[in-house]
């Protein structure tokens, strides 16, 4: 037997409605081949424990996320107060928007949801000791870190990072009219993305195998918390979608370095005939969006799952329509692979595609709407605790509904024609895949911080953080739609003189910039709170939110190596037994056997822990 930390002995279970000689089968205990760290380095640096890997992923993602935040400040300063900062010239501006977008979508949000929350929660929520392949899991993080460092390195390379926009559309991405196009910026970007996909694939295989094979006894698929469903489905999607990005990056790298012409037709650049010929720029767009659209749901589905659990736990009510929620996640995941070209309605592809992609895109609105209904119906007749996680969940509903509805404009092919490539698109995708998932990330951090550290985050700082972030982000992105409706194009270093943009629109731009500075500053308070509460936070106990899912039932808080005591937990019920009629308390943990057998003692921290 390996040296797994022992928790308290489970209380003897004597159900009162079954024969007295009945004993529930013992939770399966097997020899577990876990790697046991013995030194500080193997415990905290080259660590194979999914919980530490989760923190490494999340810490790195938040760190690079702060770079993206600063970049957003700088680009907003240019838009609101052109010329205020002399060093932001055209090149620098395009470099900032490119790296901001790339970091936010891939290196922050994707990484923190799958690498961060996925690693922490999948084994704990499913009653596993660790991921299926801990070594590969460790490797996944280090390759991800390498990808991040390559991206950072491009800031220090000659010519700086690429300024091709986060979509990296060729031919401009590898030509001299674009910052970094003929220098090392685009090369480092492509290599970094290739590394990211490789690293993610290592982690992603782990998450999928662990969900399918690592569940503890009794944890059927239809008893899994929606958090796991969301992360699992998103991971499957990412494993199918990222290869498209991977090949697109490899081909563009060849075009740039070896002179191939995958994406490069014959062209004349600044009067010079280039040697390229025969390639298709649209092919890149198809590959990019075959990845890029599922990517939207790769960040949305984990958010959907997590927010379902936040709402249910803090409203003390079962999630409404659990089975429908699961099927909606799967339907969205599947449909999201046949909508990619709605990003290309005005790309010049055959216009007949528009009919097909508009239909599929609007169909996807139906399962998405079902999820929204079920969240708000979970609030109906609940007993709503307005905790910080709950506030963020409400903020998510509002911003997600707003951003989802503007998606109906852009998905409806002919409506997209005037709006595409304008600030309306920028406002839409920030609301739906920026603000909304990030509010969930915040809510989730406030929710699970007590399990990760054993301490509560400071409530007062959390309140300020929520109010400024939610109200501020709404004030930034809601009015921004109307700039796009006016016709203001995106990716403009400055608007200059036009007949159709009234001077008042510039006042709006200044307002948006000021709000962006304030919202950004509130995130500094959040980081301070993360650190401050580590030391001074209120003691949390094992289950401060009185939640049902397994991660709150661990013998130790924070959970030790191997997560569980000698025995793995056995699961007897779904994840949402809140306020069950007749039950003495308003929640029943998943590992509590039927007929209310556990004693009160099992729910309290054992003495000495």
């Amino acid at each position, binding site marked *: 037997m390996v040296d797994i930390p022992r928790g308290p002995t489970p209380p003897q279970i004597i159900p009162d409605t079954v024969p007295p000689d009945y004993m529930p089968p013992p939770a399966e205990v097997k020899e577990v081949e876990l790697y046991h760290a013995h030194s500080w380095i193997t415990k905290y640096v080259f660590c194979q424990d999914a919980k530490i890997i989760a923190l490494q992923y999340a810490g790195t993602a938040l760190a690079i996320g702060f770079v993206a935040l600063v970049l957003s400040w700088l680009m907003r300063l240019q838009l609101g107060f052109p010329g205020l900062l002399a060093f932001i010239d055209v090149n620098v501006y395009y470099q900032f928007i490119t790296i901001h977008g790339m970091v936010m979508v891939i290196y922050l949000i994707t990484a923190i949801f799958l690498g961060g929350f996925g690693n922490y929660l999948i084994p704990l929520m499913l009653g596993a000791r660790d991921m299926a392949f801990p070594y590969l899991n460790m490797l996944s993080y280090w390759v991800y870190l390498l990808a991040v460092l390559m991206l950072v390195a491009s800031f220090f390379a000659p010519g700086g990072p690429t300024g091709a926009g986060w979509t990296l559309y060729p031919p401009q991405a590898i030509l001299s009219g674009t910052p970094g196009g003929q220098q090392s910026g685009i090369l480092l970007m492509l290599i970094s993305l290739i590394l990211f996909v490789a690293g993610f694939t290592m982690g992603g295989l782990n998450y999928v195998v662990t969900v399918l094979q690592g569940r503890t006894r009794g944890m059927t698929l239809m008893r899994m918390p929606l958090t796991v469903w969301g992360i699992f489905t998103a991971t499957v999607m990412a494993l199918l979608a990222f290869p498209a990005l991977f090949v697109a990056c490899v081909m563009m790298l060849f075009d740039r370095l070896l002179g191939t012409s995958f994406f490069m037709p014959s062209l004349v650049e600044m009067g010079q005939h280039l040697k390229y010929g025969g390639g298709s720029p649209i092919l890149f767009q198809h590959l990019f969006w075959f990845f890029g659209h599922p990517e939207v749901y790769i960040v949305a589905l984990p958010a959907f799952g997590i927010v379902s659990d936040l709402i249910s736990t803090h409203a003390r009510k079962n999630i409404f329509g659990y089975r429908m929620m699961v099927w909606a996640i799967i339907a969205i995941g599947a449909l999201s692979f046949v909508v990619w070209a709605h990003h290309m309605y005005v790309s010049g592809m055959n216009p007949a595609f528009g009919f097909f992609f508009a239909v599929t895109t609007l169909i996807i609105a139906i399962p998405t709407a079902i999820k929204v209904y079920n969240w708000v119906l979970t609030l109906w007749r609940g007993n709503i605790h307005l905790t910080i996680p709950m506030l963020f969940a409400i903020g998510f509903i509002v911003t997600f509904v707003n951003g989802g509805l503007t998606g109906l404009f852009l998905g409806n092919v002919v409506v997209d024609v005037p709006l595409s490539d304008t600030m309306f698109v920028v406002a839409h995708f920030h609301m739906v895949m920026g603000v909304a998932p990030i509010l969930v990330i915040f809510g989730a951090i406030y929710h699970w911080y007590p399990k990760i550290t054993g301490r509560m985050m400071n409530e007062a700082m959390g309140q300020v953080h929520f109010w400024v972030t939610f109200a501020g982000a709404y004030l930034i992105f809601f009015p921004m739609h109307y700039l796009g409706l006016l016709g203001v194009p995106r990716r403009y270093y400055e608007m200059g003189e036009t*007949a159709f943009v009234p001077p008042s629109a510039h006042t709006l731009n200044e307002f948006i910039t000021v709000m962006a500075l304030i919202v950004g500053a509130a995130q500094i308070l959040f980081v301070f709170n993360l650190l401050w509460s580590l030391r001074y936070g209120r003691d949390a106990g094992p289950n401060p939110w009185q939640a049902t899912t397994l991660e709150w039932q661990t013998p130790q808080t924070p959970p030790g190596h191997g997560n569980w005591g000698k025995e793995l937990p056995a699961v007897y019920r779904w994840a949402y037994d809140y306020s069950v009629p007749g039950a003495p308390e308003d929640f029943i943990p998943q590992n509590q056997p039927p007929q209310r057998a556990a004693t009160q003692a099992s729910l309290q921290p054992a003495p000495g822990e």
Partner: protein
Amino acid sequence: MKIVVLLLLIAVGSVLFHLVSPWYWTPIASNWEYIDHTITITFWITGVVFTAIVLFVAYCVYRFRYKPEQRAHYEPENRRLEGWLTLVTAIGVVAMLAPGLIVWHQFVTVPKDASAFEVVGQQWQWSYRYPGKDGKLGAADIKHITDENPLGLIAEDPHGQDDVIIQGDDLKVPLGKPVKVLLRSVDVLHDFYVPEFRSKMDMIPGMVTYFWFTPTRTGTFDVLCAELCGQGHAYMRSKVVVVPEAEFHAWLDQQPTFAQLQQTAPAKIRQAAK
């Protein structure tokens, strides 16, 4: 309870902002008012849904906020309710999609009597080309581009000789006549974008893309590039002037043809070099 107030403010404030703020689309100058109608329908449907959901959340938070003696209702599923909501959503989606697809059909069906002209994008300027008296644009290819022949017209094609090329000047289009805009690029992606026309399309090196519209009022409008094309993207500007048909033809007749330009171009270039 502050959150309830904030939710009410968001619901009411968003609707008020939409109705009274000075920022809305610029007056249309083409036949695509159908697109504006579809946007209006979509605003109505999505606006009602957004307001309803935010107000519902506000009511729930107010009515079912935590009270120590209160217990949440236990109801895992309600098939009837879920079925109804799905049906209503589907109807709403069809109400937006159906007009959208009908208008898209019009958008991609170019009228037979549409007259064609060409827009060529390059870093970072616009060029325009009209067919000459023969009514046909001559063939062109990127391989044929030289300093004297910036749009790459193929000299062997007789249709191209009388084409009119406009560089560094405004585009002119006739009022009330459907026009098909043929789009080419010689280097990277661009996008010919005139907000008042509501229509736009990317231009791609190696391909000819298109869209069509009918100008419905005279005036001068901004031409912008709507697809990121490098450092000069925001400065790739031009103007389009919608003029009565007679005036348009009078103007076009005065412009030198490609053949005429080819004769004078070398001289001009020699001059510029000095």
